[in-house]
């Protein structure tokens, strides 16, 4: 039903832009994941990867409709994701404090692994938390700005 509404929308983008965007959006998300996961060894990291992931949804909202983007990922779930990413970040920090170290001192975690592997895994977790938070905040900012602009 929602698909029919999009096709009958008279103010839609041209077929070239829609097709290219539909092809590109999965690759943008894949590239964002790559930037997040290779954050320690290459330029980029959680913040940059989160911005790239958020850009894919922003492209969806620009080329299709704002309602289409909000049907894929609603404002409620974006708020939940925002808090969830922060929870991952601070949860790893608090776990380090509970296991006897300082805040975000990774090597004190009681895992049966060498110290540098624990450090790398915790850093990956922190990067993923930052990435989720930044993605949700960027998309939510765009939704609120464009939604207010279209309402007036």
């Amino acid at each position, binding site marked *: 039903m929602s698909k029919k509404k999009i096709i009958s929308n008279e103010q839609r983008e041209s077929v070239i832009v829609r097709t290219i965007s539909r092809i590109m959006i999965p690759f943008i998300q894949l590239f964002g994941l790559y930037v997040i996961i290779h954050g320690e060894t290459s330029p980029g990291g959680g913040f940059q990867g989160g911005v*790239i992931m958020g*850009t894919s949804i922003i*492209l969806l909202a620009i080329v299709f409709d704002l309602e289409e983007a909000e049907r894929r990922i609603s404002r409620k779930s974006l708020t939940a994701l925002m808090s969830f990413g922060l929870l991952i970040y601070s949860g790893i920090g608090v776990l380090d404090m509970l296991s006897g170290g300082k805040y975000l001192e990774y090597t004190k975690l009681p895992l049966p692994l060498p110290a540098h592997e624990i450090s790398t895994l915790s850093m990956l977790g922190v990067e993923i938390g930052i990435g989720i938070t930044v993605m949700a905040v960027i998309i939510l900012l765009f939704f609120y700005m464009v939604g207010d602009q279209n309402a007036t």
Partner: protein
Amino acid sequence: MIFELIKSVTFFELIALVLTVTAFICLYRVVFGPRVGNRIIAVNVIGTKTAVLLVLIGFIFDSLYFVDVALVYALFNFIMTIAVSKYIEMGRI
């Protein structure tokens, strides 16, 4: 000495230099463009030139990381062009 300097420039450095100079020619069209379409396309061309320039810089400095930066730059250039075009066409995003 100047002759030695010119002779030491490799092919890819020359291409990077030419791309930089032509990007400034496009900047003229951005500033003095008669219509808004000229400006948008000129900015788009400058962005594409910059992406190629980043890959060339990565080749010259022998570093693969510049390819990532060039990919992100091309991607944001594409999205920026679509957003600005839609805003000018419809008055909203």
